[in-house]
């Protein structure tokens, strides 16, 4: 197998492993947010959590696949490492972006619930007896 094919293979293995790791982290740690957002409705939280992770996988694998093709020649190990670092670096940035986007979505959902349940900020000045 020529160096370029090896580079592709290593790129795919690394990218898939990284994506799976980030997705699992999100899945595991995002659950508690969602349970809170949905007022303790665990089956609904699990379902939304699963759907979010599926979307996360689709976008990341889509990017990994589209970004596969190398436009620079790869004929030696150093060139291969250079190409890999470029590609994997881009995948990491996309993953980071997606991760923060997910966090943003979680915190927005939670904020809405917290706001809806917030009591009046001030205690009443008086109380009318009826």
């Amino acid at each position, binding site marked *: 197998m020529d160096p370029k094919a090896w580079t592709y293979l290593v790129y795919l293995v690394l990218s898939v492993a990284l994506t799976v790791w980030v997705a699992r982290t999100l899945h595991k740690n995002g659950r508690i947010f969602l349970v809170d957002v949905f007022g303790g409705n665990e089956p609904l939280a699990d379902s939304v959590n699963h759907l979010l992770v599926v979307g996360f996988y689709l976008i990341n694998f889509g990017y990994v696949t589209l970004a596969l093709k190398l436009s620079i020649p790869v004929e030696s190990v150093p060139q291969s490492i250079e190409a890999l670092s470029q590609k994997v670096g881009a995948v990491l940035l996309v993953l980071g972006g997606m991760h923060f986007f997910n966090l943003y979505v979680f915190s927005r959902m939670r904020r809405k619930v917290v*706001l809806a349940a917030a009591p009046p900020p*001030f205690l009443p*000045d*008086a109380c009318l007896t009826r």
Partner: protein
Amino acid sequence: MNQLTVLYDPRCTLCRSARDFLSKEESYVPIVLVAAGSETARQRFPGLDHAATLSTLTVIDDRGNVWKDDAAFVTCLWALRRYREWSLRLATPAFRPHIRTFFHWFSENRHRLSSFVPQALMPSQEASR
């Protein structure tokens, strides 16, 4: 809380604008707007000092809790979907003194400030709901 009654000053243009604004905004709690000192207000809240409600903003919830002044203003914001987050922020110790100063100044000068409202933007005398 299931309802918030806002007693607005019907003699002041800016207060009527605020009433129209409150009636149009989406709220977490249904808002009922009643002219302060009116017969409706007297009938609904017999235990309230109605002369005082004409000088300062007063809001009352369905359990009889009364908020006055800047606390009433912030409670109105709290009832609105778009402004609840702001109301919680304004209630923090960092903002509270400023909002109190601003609201007192506004409340005392509301009739004078009303004269600056252009004729085209004048709200109607009648309640919009």
